[in-house]
């Protein structure tokens, strides 16, 4: 597929002590290429929401900053166009985040570590967009649709729906047993992190499910635990050998599943049990996607259709059990999405 990017700006991510442009920046990073990577986010969003056709020969992407006040950028608008001669399709999304957001967090940590910024001292982030002088070619991301199976939920063992709901343009179904296993594994491991390899599939149904707008459903079918993964407080090390073995198991099951993602936990204290009620609990919530988690999403699972299920505490959630939160790429970052259980 040929991808043409139309962009007339250079973008930089700056950290400053004050929220104005008069101050000398603490750090400046050219993030123009990170902005171009949002073309991939927009493309996958268009494919999964059943708007963009798969197999287009050419896509033209237009990147435009939406300014608060020039040169301060509020959002990035990405518009994709495929086809022509009466068959043109457009899809566009706006982004407040992107890879530059993670770069900025890392920069902030660096500034604190080297002492430039004191612990507790605030820094202001600004995304700056300036007209690019002259030719400014951008390397287009590799736009590839994820593997999607035309079929039915029943061929993956689906029997009936359980609790939960759908995001209309990104329906996610999780096997009830897998969801319960993730919560129980989190409880058993306590503050130590644990996890496993999640199998599943992207399935294109004949018709969208009720209350959804796309035929493409993400199905998470089972989680494979493996002793080669190792967990401790705040970190779960993923074994490449165990991940590779997961694919072999998926192939042997013969249902067309593949390794979709990993499930991991952010810890839960079985001693106090009040993790969901205690605002000062030191354990990270399952709603929090850390820089380490993002690194997994951008290296091990670089496709933008990948979900990240995290089990752990969730402030305000009822009861004394961990919660399973499913995160999906939305707006250039991983955000929790509604999901529904199913029984097999």
């Amino acid at each position, binding site marked *: 597929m040929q991808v043409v990017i139309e962009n007339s700006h250079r973008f930089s991510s700056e950290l400053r002590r004050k929220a104005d442009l008069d101050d000398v920046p603490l750090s400046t990073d050219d993030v123009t290429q990170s902005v171009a990577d949002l073309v991939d986010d927009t493309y996958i969003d268009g494919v999964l929401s059943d708007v963009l056709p798969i197999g287009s020969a050419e896509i033209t992407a237009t990147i435009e900053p939406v300014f608060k006040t020039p040169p301060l950028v509020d959002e990035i608008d990405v518009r994709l166009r495929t086809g022509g001669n009466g068959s043109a399709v457009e899809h566009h999304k706006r982004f407040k985040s992107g890879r530059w957001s993670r770069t900025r967090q890392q920069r902030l940590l*660096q500034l604190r570590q080297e002492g430039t910024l004191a612990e507790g001292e605030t820094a202001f982030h600004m995304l700056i967009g300036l007209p690019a002088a002259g030719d400014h070619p951008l390397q287009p*991301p*590799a736009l590839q649709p*994820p593997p999607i199976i035309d079929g039915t939920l029943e061929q993956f063992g689906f029997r009936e729906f359980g609790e939960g709901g759908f995001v209309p343009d990104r329906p996610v179904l999780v096997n009830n047993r897998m969801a319960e296993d993730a919560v129980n594994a989190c409880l058993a491991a306590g503050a130590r992190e644990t*996890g496993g390899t999640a199998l599943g599939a992207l399935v294109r149904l004949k018709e969208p499910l009720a209350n959804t707008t796309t035929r493409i459903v993400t199905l998470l079918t089972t989680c494979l635990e493996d002793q080669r993964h190792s967990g401790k407080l705040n970190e779960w090390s993923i074994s490449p050998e165990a991940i590779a073995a997961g694919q072999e198991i998926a192939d042997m099951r013969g249902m067309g599943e593949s390794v979709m993602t990993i499930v991991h936990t952010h810890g839960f204290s079985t001693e106090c049990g009040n993790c969901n009620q205690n605002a000062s609990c030191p354990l990270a919530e399952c709603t929090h996607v850390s820089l*380490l*988690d993002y690194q997994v999403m951008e290296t*091990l*699972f670089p496709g933008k259709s990948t979900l990240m299920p995290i089990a752990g505490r969730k402030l305000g959630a009822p009861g004394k059990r961990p919660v399973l939160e499913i995160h999906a790429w939305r707006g250039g970052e991983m955000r929790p999405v509604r999901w529904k259980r199913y029984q097999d």
Partner: protein
Amino acid sequence: MVAATKLKMTDISRQKRFETDLSDALTPRHTVGQAVDLYLDRMRIPGDGLRWSAFNRGVKLDSKATLDELDEEQSEWTVIPEVSAGAKSALH
């Protein structure tokens, strides 16, 4: 042994797929590790200083092996990094 003449590389979720002949950017004298580097570059996947491995049918390939040591059946790889998830937000 029939030597591999092309390579197919993908991530574990089979979303970023790259195929190349061993007469183009890669030649039989390149190593597995160099081929992985090319895959990361073409797919715009950040290397992030991580240790990367190529697997064929669940078996890890020696990153120092040259591509002419591979037979045709070893030409489809899954590229996987050593990486950690978790609540920690340390520098890496």
